[in-house]
């Protein structure tokens, strides 16, 4: 999958995560989370797994996490990646 534009998915509500992805020359993942001390490794592992599933090797991936569960992180990141790979206005 190729990222062609900046896209977002999610919210800043508790237990959700706001994922922002945009094209970049390298892979940069940033994580901000109130549960970083407890779950940073688990969250990053999930993120890398989803990126691998979509064969995304470069891009800027920003997570403003509010304590989202694994399934939520996966869903939000998947949606953000799909949005970022389509031309603007292309999604329904």
């Amino acid at each position: 999958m190729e990222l062609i534009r900046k896209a977002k998915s999610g919210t800043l509500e508790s237990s959700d995560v706001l994922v922002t992805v945009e094209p970049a020359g390298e892979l940069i993942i940033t994580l901000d989370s109130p549960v970083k001390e407890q779950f940073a490794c688990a969250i990053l592992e999930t993120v890398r797994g989803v990126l691998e599933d979509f064969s995304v090797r470069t891009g800027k991936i920003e997570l403003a996490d509010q304590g989202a569960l694994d399934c939520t992180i996966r869903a939000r990141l998947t949606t953000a990646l799909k949005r970022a790979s389509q031309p603007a206005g292309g999604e329904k």
Partner: protein
Amino acid sequence: MKRDNKVMPSLAEAIRQTGLRDGMTVSFHHHLRDGDAVLNLVLAECEKLGVRDLTVNASALMACHHPIVDFIRKGTVTGIECNYMHPVVGHEISKGLLAREVIFRSHGGRPAALERKEAHIDVAFIAASTSDRAGNCNGRDGRTAFGSIGYAMPDAEHADNVVVVTDHLAPYPVSVASIDERYVDAVVVIDSIGDPDKIMSGTTRVTRDPIGLLIADYTARALSASGLLEDGLSFQTGAGGTSLAVASFIGEIMRGRGIRGSFASGGITGMLVDLFQEGLFETLIDVQCFDRDAVRSIRDNEKHREISASTYASPAVKSSVVDHLDIVILGATEIDSQFNVNVHTDSNGFIMGGSGGHSDTAAGAKLSVIVAPLIRARLPLIVDRVGTISTPGKDVDLLVTQYGLACNPEKTELDYRLRSAGLPVFTIEELHERAVGITGVPGRHPSQGRPVARVVSRDGDLLDIIRAVNR
């Protein structure tokens, strides 16, 4: 000092006459909660007078007391004793702001420490919404009325010097002297002691969150099955959305079965006032009003009684109200397999609260129930070992979450009753596994810094130590 007129021309003059010196302890009460102006005003005046090295003994430090952080940096304040500390102050303490350890007590432990002479107050500053020239005062009359003044009563009795700070001077004698002139050295009139609109902070309505409602429903069914929902019931609950939902459901059950309770106690909310006015409870016993309805009710109803913190919960007196409680509903930040409860520190080790009446009511009540969601923002409620022991597990009987209930293993009869009623009862270990199955296993990094606070049990023993967070 004239015995018939104690009114001082200014706060500075009032402080000066107390003989307040470096190294002394001053006390405050928090009935105006996030609207209190008196603590900040007094400390600012102390700073101007050049008094340093003060210990502040406050029933609670709220968000509005954030300026205390500056007074600590300037050396005006070098010690804190309190029963609750809002995170805006707590985070600074956890980062090592104060060289001396904070002493955390409970609402009953604080007066008990005065009664046992383990704590000493040199000068008590008492915010009162009405006072006469002799210091007969209360919190129920005047434009800044906040209701019960219960936490300040032990201060008035035990402090060496008592200053009543009011914004409404009434003719002698005021009709209700919650604190009376025998104890008062000086009265000072200021423009405003605070903003009573800010007494009510956070949620004070029945929750609409389905998880909270499910927890409240399980709780009501558990109480119903416990055998304690009988005529003469005594009950206490907090002001959180889930607690209020429990109170509302209990009201429904009592109405349905024609049960008449004896008293509801504690921090009193409009919800409890409603149940009382409907006749479901005979009396309200009030150490602190949580909202305007409670403030109005304590003024208008004789059976809505104002009590001191000592009468409420002190273990150092011959008996207190908590000893008569059947049921108390409480919250938790964390609970462990020993049923120890933490309400002092967050998952990262930062101070964010305190016992309040948690450990007192848990110890006193026949049935103490912890209501809390099993998972909050990916953090499991149940942990291997709580970050801080606020209430020891021996005083906690039942945990209710949206995924099910767990009884303290000591409570075999309760466990049997709940299972027989068809409630989803598990062991606390089973609920723990359930939570971690959803969230993943959280990494734990206990704070390793120097001690910044000690949690003292209501009996005066060391319950736990809170360490600095060095991250």
